[in-house]
């Protein structure tokens, strides 16, 4: 494996709400290597977006980071000075949002939004870029994102474009200037099914062309299996299993991964899976031990009292489950 780009270490993030404190991320560890495409999978509310937003330090006001590090090229994003974070956001990491309609200011033209995004990514270097050059770069980026008539799109307001076009605009923005990491947070969830595939292929093509690393956040196992090299399976704010995409899909260890994968309806017999009984973690009163233990069919007594450590079952394949740490002779 090549050089380590991003290293999230033991990240713990919560949200203050009226009823108390939601302890969402409970010690998340993620590594992203240069040029790698990594998927983060989990159901709605499993803390995927919180992970993404922590990387860029754009968590909502109510969020609180308790512990952990987000090391980008060995520098902790969470303790960076404001200018350093600005530089990181302008030149290193960009993000594609879940809902392009909500993520584009409704009363600004695409051109005016893009010129800010591109313009600031260069002013950080101290060199001023002429508006005409910025415009040129915006047009090029839109063209690369397969958008017809880029000049007209620059003059348009977001509501004048279709959902798919808005997401293409966002992808163009994310890759208009060189980046070492792109975070795509459920980039196709809010789009028509017919558009989803095109958008994913576009992201994949641009990422490959520009040798950028990708974090793809999704609840869709399908999307992740097609798009990524490696996968982190999350449940209730913890990483339960991580492996090469193919390994994880062919040979899942964690009971949650197994249950989830068996839920995929197959065309060749079997019908629909049985689903997973129980409910998502209540973060106000999260289980003390393994967060999946209340729903786990194979839970042991120890699962309810202690958090399972991450153990390597095969090279590169790690599982956080006592079922496997015992096999390893603990």
């Amino acid at each position: 494996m090549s050089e380590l780009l991003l290293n999230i270490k033991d990240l713990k993030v919560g949200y203050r709400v009226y009823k108390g404190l939601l302890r969402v991320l409970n010690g998340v560890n993620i590594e992203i290597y240069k040029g790698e495409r990594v998927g983060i999978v989990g159901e709605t509310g499993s803390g995927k977006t919180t992970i993404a937003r922590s990387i860029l330090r754009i968590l909502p006001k109510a969020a609180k980071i308790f512990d952990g590090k987000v090391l980008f090229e060995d520098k902790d994003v969470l303790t960076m000075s404001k200018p350093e974070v600005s530089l990181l956001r302008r030149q290193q990491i960009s993000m594609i949002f879940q809902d392009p309609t909500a993520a584009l200011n409704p009363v600004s033209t695409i051109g005016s939004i893009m010129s800010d995004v591109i313009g600031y990514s260069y002013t950080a270097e101290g060199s001023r870029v002429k508006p005409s050059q910025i415009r040129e770069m915006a047009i090029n980026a839109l063209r690369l994102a397969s958008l017809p008539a880029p000049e007209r799109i620059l003059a348009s307001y977001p509501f004048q474009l279709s959902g798919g076009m808005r997401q293409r605009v966002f992808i163009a923005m994310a890759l208009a200037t060189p980046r070492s990491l792109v975070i795509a947070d459920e980039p196709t969830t809010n789009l028509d099914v017919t558009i989803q595939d095109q958008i994913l292929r576009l992201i994949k093509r641009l990422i490959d062309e520009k040798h950028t690393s990708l974090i793809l956040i999704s609840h869709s196992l399908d999307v992740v299996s097609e798009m990524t090299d490696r996968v982190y399976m999350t449940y209730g704010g913890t990483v339960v299993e991580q492996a090469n995409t193919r390994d994880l899909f062919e040979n899942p260890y964690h009971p949650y991964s197994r249950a989830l994968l068996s839920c995929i309806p197959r065309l060749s017999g079997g019908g629909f899976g049985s689903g997973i009984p129980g409910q998502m973690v209540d973060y106000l009163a999260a289980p003390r031990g393994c967060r999946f233990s209340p729903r786990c069919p194979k839970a042991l007594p120890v699962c309810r009292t202690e958090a399972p450590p991450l153990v390597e079952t095969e090279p590169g394949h790690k599982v956080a489950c006592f079922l496997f740490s015992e096999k390893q002779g603990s």
Partner: protein
Amino acid sequence: MSLPSWLAKRLGEAVIVLVGLSILLFCITRILPGDPARIALGPRVPESAVEDLRKQMNLDKPLPTQYFLWVKGVLRGDFGMSLLSRRAVVTDIKAYFPATLEEVILAAILQFAGGIGLGILAAKYADTWLDGIVRVVAYLGIATPSFVWGIVLLLLLGYWIPILPIQGRISPNVTPPPHITGMFTVDSLLTGKLGVLWDSLKHLILPALALALAPMSQAARLLRSSMCDDMEADHVYAMRAYGVPENRILTKYLARLAFIPAISVMSLDAGSLFASAFVVESVFNFPGLSRFGMQAILNKDLNSIAGILLLVGVLFVLIIILADLIVAYLDPRTRLQQRG
């Protein structure tokens, strides 16, 4: 819809509103108790003279005829004679209106500048002590009627700390500037008499402030809350994620969005300044239109009442149209969105 056709439509609507207003005004002035001709002439004049005046004023004709005769006059710019001053109503309005206009304009400037400034400040420093102060002041501003502010300001800055004059438009020892627009501030500025300008501004500031405090507070609260709502919006986080500086997000993306709902309310409030001016001018003994209007109402001076109220109505409608134009400029969705 293109801008000209949109504007034409709004102006058409405005005409309908004004026709309705004129009918309403006309009815109200005629329904008020008392015989205007008798009040105008006094109790000692013989009945025959009163009868003559009634004929002269068309009061003997049926109401619809009276209305059309009145409208015919209004369209020619003739609002009839004032029964009180025995001058053309237009002449009286010309004499009194500039004072009120400069008072209201200054109040509107204070309202917008103060409201927008305080609103943005409170939003930027939301949930800090600064925000707390702005919120308390804004509550006080809204909850206190303008005439109470007038009296408080008079006591505070005119009596206890006497740094500002307490009544009138200009000091007795200062010669008013030559009549150009009738607004002392503008006229003195045009003729280069800065001393006179300063003196008339000192007279204006307290009434204008008393007028402006309530709508200013309202504007600040509205802006603060809509900006705070938008601050947690996805598109703001998106701009932040791309390293756009906070101040630029605030001034370019947030303020514009927050102005859209606030601007309509702010301009309605600005229109209402003319109404509040009626009371505030009495407190400050300010020789403006509303003091004149008050006397007209007490004396059942039909033509003056109708003339003044129609003028205020027209101004109100114009302000609303202007507000709609500003909103259309700020919000492309109202301008460009195609229905269907």
